[in-house]
C-alpha cells in the first residue's frame, strides 16, 4: 500500500479540494488562525494542556470493545469505538476543547459556532464555560425544534442560542449566519467550526483534533486483537468523526467506509448523500462535493439525523473519494432507525441517529462482510439521548402512515 500524500498543501488544498472561499474581511483572520494553529501544534505546553483536558475532563481515552451479541447475530466480529462516552455525549468535544484552547491562546473572548444536532453547540458551550468565555450558537429553527434537549443544555451552559429563520432553517443556514457574525465581529471573535469543513485551516485543524479517535482506536484494537480491523465504518455529516477515526489508519491495509444519510432514499432526491452524488462545488469556504442544482444553487439536505442533514462535506473526504482511498455508502432514515433499535437491544447502547447509520450499513452488508471474514470497527460517534424524543415522534408518524 502506497503512503498517502500529506495533505493539505500550504494553500489548504486536498488535491483540488479545499481552499479559502470567504469574504476578504475574513482572510486576515484565517491567516492569523493558521499561524496561531501552526505554532500551537508544535508547542508542547499546548499539546499537554489539551491532552490533559481530554483525559481529566472529557474522559478520554474512550472505550473500545467487541460488541459480542451483535457479532453473534451478524456472524463476524464487530467492535465499537465509544465516542458516545465523551463528556457531552459525542466526539464533537475533542475538537471544541482544542479550538477553544486556541481561542484563549489567541486572546479572543467571544466564541461563536454553528450547530445542527446541537452536539457541537453543546460541546462549544461547554468548552467556553470551562474557560469563562462568552459563546453564541447559531442553530436552524428546524433543528431547534427537533433537538430541544440540546438547546436547553446550551442555555444552561451559559451560551446564547440564536434560532436561524432563513433558508432551510437547518445547519447550512446556521453556518451562513455564523459566518455573517464572524465577518461582522471578526476582530474579537473566534469561530469554532464543528466539522472538517469551512475554509483552510479548519478542515486540517479539526481533523488533527479529531484524529485522537483513530490514534486511540488503532492502539486499542491492536492491543485487543493483535491486528487491525478489516473495515472501519463511520457516519459522515461534515465528516469530522469519520476523518478522526480514518486518519490514523490511512496508511494501513484497512477499508475506510464513510456512511452518508440517504434520507428517504437517494432516488427520491430527499437525502444528504453528498459524496454519493459527487458534484464538486464551493460552500462555506471550501471546494468540495455539494448537493446543488445545475445553477449551483444549494439543495436542501434531508435526514432524520440533524447531524447529517447538511448538503456539503469536508474537502478531505472529497479527496479520499477522488483518489479512491475511502468508499462512501448511504443508508436511509428507516434503516438507521432500525439499527438504532438493534444496537440498543443487542448491546445496551442507544446510539446517536448519526452513528446508527454506520451500524445500519454493517447490518445491511452482513453477508458480504461475513464472506470476507471481516473484522469491523464502527465509530460510535455519539449517544442517542438527544434523539429519543425525535425517534418517538417519527415512529408515531410512521405508525400512522402505515396504519
Amino acid at each position, binding site marked *: 500500500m502506497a503512503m498517502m500524500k500529506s495533505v493539505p498543501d500550504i*494553500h489548504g488544498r486536498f488535491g483540488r479540494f479545499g*481552499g*479559502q*472561499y*470567504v*469574504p*476578504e*474581511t*475574513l*482572510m*486576515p*483572520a484565517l*491567516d492569523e488562525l493558521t499561524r496561531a494553529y501552526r505554532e500551537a501544534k508544535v508547542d508542547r505546553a499546548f499539546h499537554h494542556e489539551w491532552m490533559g483536558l481530554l483525559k481529566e475532563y472529557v474522559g478520554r481515552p474512550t472505550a473500545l470493545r467487541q460488541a459480542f451479541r451483535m457479532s453473534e447475530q451478524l456472524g463476524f466480529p464487530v467492535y465499537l469505538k465509544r465516542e458516545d462516552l465523551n463528556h457531552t455525549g459525542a466526539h464533537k468535544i475533542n475538537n471544541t476543547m482544542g479550538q477553544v484552547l486556541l481561542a484563549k491562546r489567541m486572546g479572543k473572548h467571544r466564541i461563536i459556532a454553528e450547530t445542527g444536532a446541537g452536539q457541537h453547540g453543546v460541546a462549544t458551550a461547554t468548552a467556553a464555560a470551562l474557560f469563562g468565555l462568552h459563546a453564541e450558537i447559531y442553530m436552524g429553527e428546524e433543528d431547534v425544534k427537533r433537538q430541544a434537549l440540546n438547546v436547553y443544555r446550551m442555555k444552561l451552559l451559559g451560551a446564547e442560542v440564536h434560532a436561524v429563520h*432563513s*433558508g432551510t432553517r437547518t445547519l*447550512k*443556514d446556521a453556518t*451562513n449566519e455564523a*459566518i*455573517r457574525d464572524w*465577518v*461582522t*465581529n*471578526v*476582530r474579537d471573535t473566534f469561530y469554532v467550526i464543528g466539522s472538517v469543513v469551512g475554509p483552510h485551516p479548519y478542515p486540517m485543524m479539526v481533523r488533527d483534533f479529531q484524529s485522537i479517535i483513530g490514534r486511540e482506536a488503532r492502539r486499542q484494537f491492536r492491543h485487543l486483537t493483535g491486528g487491525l480491523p478489516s473495515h472501519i465504518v463511520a457516519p459522515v455529516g461534515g465528516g469530522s468523526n469519520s476523518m478522526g477515526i480514518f486518519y490514523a489508519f490511512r496508511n494501513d491495509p484497512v477499508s475506510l467506509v464513510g456512511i452518508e444519510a440517504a434520507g428517504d432514499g437517494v432516488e427520491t432526491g430527499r437525502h444528504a448523500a453528498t459524496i454519493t452524488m459527487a458534484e*464538486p*462545488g*464551493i*460552500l*462555506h*469556504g471550501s*471546494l468540495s462535493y*455539494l448537493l*446543488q442544482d*445545475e*445553477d*449551483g*444553487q*444549494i439543495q436542501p439536505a434531508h435526514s432524520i439525523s440533524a447531524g447529517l442533514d447538511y448538503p456539503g462535506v469536508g474537502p478531505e473526504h472529497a479527496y479520499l473519494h477522488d483518489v479512491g482511498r475511502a468508499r462512501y455508502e448511504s443508508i436511509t432514515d428507516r434503516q438507521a432507525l432500525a439499527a438504532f433499535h438493534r444496537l440498543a437491544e443487542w448491546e445496551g447502547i442507544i446510539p446517536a441517529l448519526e452513528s446508527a447509520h454506520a451500524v445500519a450499513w454493517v447490518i445491511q452488508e452482513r453477508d458480504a462482510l461475513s464472506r470476507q471474514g471481516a473484522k469491523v470497527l464502527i465509530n460510535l460517534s455519539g449517544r442517542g439521548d438527544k434523539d429519543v424524543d425525535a425517534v418517538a415522534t417519527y415512529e408515531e408518524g410512521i405508525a400512522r402512515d402505515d396504519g
Partner: protein
Amino acid sequence: MTANTAIRNAFERARHEHRAALIPYITAGYPSLDHLEPLVQALEAGGADLIEIGVPFSDPLADGPILQQAATEALAAGVKVQQILDRVAALRVSVPLVFLTYVNPIYRRGIERFIEDSHRSGIQGLIVPDWPWVEMREAAKVSKRHRVAMIPFVAPTSTDAHLHNIRSAEGFVYTVSVTGVTGARTHLDQGVGGLVARIREQVKIPIAVGFGISTPEQARETGKVADGVIVGSALVKVIRDHPDNPIEAAQAFVGSFRNALETK
C-alpha cells in the same frame, strides 16, 4: 473597448464632473425578471454611472437580511442563471454593467464558461464576495482574455500584502466600509477615509465604497473620499417598499443620491 476601458470611462466621466461615481445594485429577478429592464433603465435615468446586477444565490453569506430576502424570492420564483444572461444581453443601456454573485454559481457553470457568457451578455466585471483574490489564479487569465474585470475587495481588516497583491487588478476596488454584511446602517465606520488613503498608496484603479450606505447624506460624505459610491440594500429596500411603483421609486431614490453627489 476592453472591460477595463468601459469601467474606467465611467469613473472618469464622474471625475470630470468633480463627483464620485454612483453605483446602484439590484437583484436580478426581484421583484421579477420582467422588472430587470425597466429597473436598469430607471437607474440609468436616475443618474447611475455603473450598475451592479446581482445574480441570486441560495446561500448569500455576505448579505444582510434585505438582499437575502430578495435572492430567496427570486430563486423561489424560479429564476435561472441562463435567463438572467439572456435578459442582460437584451438590455439597452449605455452605462457599464457588472455582476455580483457568489463563487458557486460561477464554479458550477464552469469558470471559463461563466466569464465568457457574462462577457457575451455585455457584462464588464464580476464582483464575488466569497472569492478572495488569492483563490482567483485560474479565473484571472480567463477574465483577462474575455476583458471581464474581476473586482477585488478591500476590507477594514485587509493587510498591506493584500493591497500589494491587487495592484494588478482591473475595474475598480470594492472597498467594504465596515466589517460586516450588506445592509443599511445608520452610521458608517469612521475609518473609511483612512482605508481609502491606504488603498490609494498601492492601487491605481478607482476606489468605490459600499456596504451600508443608505442615505444621500452618507453617499455625499463617502463621495468626498472615494471615487465611487455603491448603494445596494437601501435601494432594494425601496423597491420592496414600493410594490406598486418600484421603477419610479428606484429612479427617484437613485436620483436623490446623484443630487447629493453633485452637491459639494
